[in-house]
């Protein structure tokens, strides 16, 4: 039984949109989407799932909500796309309301269940198909849609204007120079070795992270640049709202910007979903087998700088730390071992959670869930009790995670579950620990 409080959440992006739909429109849109946009995967997954329920033990939502069977992946699929397919789109507003709640707020598309289903059914794909259909019907949680609107208008997620961005980068350059003389943030430098790509929340609300990066780049003597024209932000909430046209536009612009700067490669800041969008979902929508330039995630980049000796550690972090493996760079890139190597070089006392690596629980914030905003926050907290218990068991003082969604989600978890811990990005430890060249 779905949680009563959650099913009563009022979200104008969902409820308001449903009121405008007629049964004929609903049927036409759903049947059209199924015919045009789905094929063998959807058919075979739905036809062959034997409903063994083994996927349940993969899902943090199910585990956190006292094993309520309605939160098992198989139930989420049956109660959304399963019904849409069975009834060929003949569904009502009440059904759509519940399907949207399930698809947008109770699944983070973290893909853990695909490694728990004996058949490897791609539940994340099925849930994203539900979101796609909701999007085509105009049903998207209001806060999430606002970020997509920003993407569509400004090419970045947070309505950042170009003059604001440049001003922020110059300001961060000054701050970085206060930390390490000679640090620079070279803007739009053609032919640099590395384009450092950030998501819009960095200049908007976490600007010091960019100064940290300037210090790291100076200390490692990297030839780098940051872009200031459209395409500098490669976060991609449209990927999660089901607005795949906008998703494709964002990724094309991002890669165009990198190609114009003639850089050798792109280093993606500490964000998981942006990496997924730029390397997998975006290129696939655009019909590219892979991105036009190599992209490495910050974890790989730090690993490379530390193991090659370009960065040296002067003083390790002493307090006990634990790790949150982000789905999109662990199940999505296999970076968990490199992340461990980096953190063991940086910290004296690394405490592991159980389970970890590819089996780590999702943060419940990623996949667009946190972007559904305040109306859904309490629901999100109820869905992530297992994570809080995992952290508490480590006795660590600091949770390290190289992902913005994980970071924001964990801040909420620590507050909600009253854990006396803090959360940090790897770069925040790096700037404290590295040897600064004289």
């Amino acid at each position: 039984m779905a949680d009563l409080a959650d099913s009563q959440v009022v979200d104008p992006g969902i409820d308001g949109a449903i009121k405008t739909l007629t049964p004929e429109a609903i049927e036409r849109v759903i049947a059209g989407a199924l015919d045009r946009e789905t094929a063998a995967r959807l058919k075979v997954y739905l036809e062959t799932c034997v409903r063994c329920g083994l996927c349940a033990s993969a899902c943090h939502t199910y585990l956190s909500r006292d094993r309520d069977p309605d939160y098992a992946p198989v139930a989420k699929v049956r109660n959304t796309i399963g019904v849409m397919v069975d009834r060929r789109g003949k569904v009502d507003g009440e059904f759509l309301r519940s399907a949207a709640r399930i698809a947008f707020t109770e699944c983070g598309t973290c893909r853990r269940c695909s490694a728990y289903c004996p058949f490897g059914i791609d539940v994340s794909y099925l849930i994203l198909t539900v979101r796609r259909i909701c999007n085509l019907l105009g049903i998207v949680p209001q806060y999430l849609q606002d970020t997509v609107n920003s993407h569509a208008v400004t090419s970045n997620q947070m309505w950042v204007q170009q003059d604001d961005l440049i001003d922020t980068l110059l300001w961060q350059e000054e701050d970085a120079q206060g930390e390490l003389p000679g640090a620079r943030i070279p803007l739009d430098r053609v032919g640099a070795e590395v384009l450092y790509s950030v998501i819009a929340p960095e200049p908007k609300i976490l600007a010091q992270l960019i100064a940290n990066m300037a210090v790291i780049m100076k200390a490692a003597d990297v030839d780098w640049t940051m872009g200031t024209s459209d395409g500098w932000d490669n976060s991609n909430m449209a990927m999660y709202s089901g607005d795949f046209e906008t998703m494709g536009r964002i990724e094309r612009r991002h890669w165009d910007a990198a190609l114009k700067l003639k850089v050798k490669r792109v280093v993606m800041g500490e964000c998981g979903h942006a990496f997924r969008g730029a390397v997998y979902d975006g290129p696939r929508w655009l019909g590219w087998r892979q991105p036009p330039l190599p992209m490495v995630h910050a974890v790989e980049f730090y690993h490379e700088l530390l193991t090659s000796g370009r960065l040296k550690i002067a003083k390790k972090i002493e307090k006990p730390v634990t790790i949150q493996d982000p789905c999109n760079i662990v199940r999505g890139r296999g970076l968990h071992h490199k992340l461990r190597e980096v953190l063991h070089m940086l910290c004296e006392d690394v405490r592991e959670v159980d389970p970890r690596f590819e089996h780590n629980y999702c943060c419940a914030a990623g996949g667009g869930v946190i972007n559904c905003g305040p109306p859904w926050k309490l629901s999100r907290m109820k869905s992530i009790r297992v994570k809080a218990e995992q952290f508490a068991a480590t006795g660590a003082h600091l949770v390290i995670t190289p992902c913005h969604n994980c970071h924001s989600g964990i801040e909420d978890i620590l507050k909600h579950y009253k854990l006396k811990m803090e959360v940090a990005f790897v770069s925040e430890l790096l700037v404290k620990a590295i040897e600064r060249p004289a």
Partner: protein
Amino acid sequence: MIELARGPLTWVAFALLVGGTIWNLYTRLVLARKDKVVYPYWSTPHAARSILHWVVPFASRNMRLHPLFTIVSFAFHACLLLTPLLVMGHAVLWQESWGLSWWSLPAGVADAMTLVVIGGGVAFIVRRIAAPEVRNVTTWRDHLLILTVIAPFVTGLLAHHQLLPYRAMVTLHIVTGVVWLAAIPFTRLSHMLWFVFMRGYMGSEFGAVRNARDW
């Protein structure tokens, strides 16, 4: 009656099984081109790696989380596939009809394997009723499917031991066997046909594309 079951009905069953399997696989494998992502990212070594971890008992974490289910499920599936091929009564039929002969199971072992299939099927039904996460998504069709699968084993056992009228039981055994075989391509039993493709695709996406394990 028994002649009808042994003759035309069995032919119909094999025709439906073979024809249905070809139709099911062919139509969906062609349709998979429209998915755009299936064939370009398929990687046979990574597919094989993933399949291997899911056909070896306890090689995946989820199997280790459910030890009893893993044992029952593997025993059930192994006996389900092997017993009909190796039971002596069937070997005689192969020999009579086609002149083919191969090794067959001692009667006692075949009986035990049949009981494993029946017991496993009953265990699945009990689990479907007792485990909330399974009951929640179970319909009468899921129960019927399990009954369809174990019915030829129940009737086969009864016929072999002649506990009930022999001819009637043999006829019933053939009829239930025919239904089971014919149902494979047209029901959720098609998981049997699709396992390697589905697991292989996910193994490719995890292994070849994303450098991660999916077991």
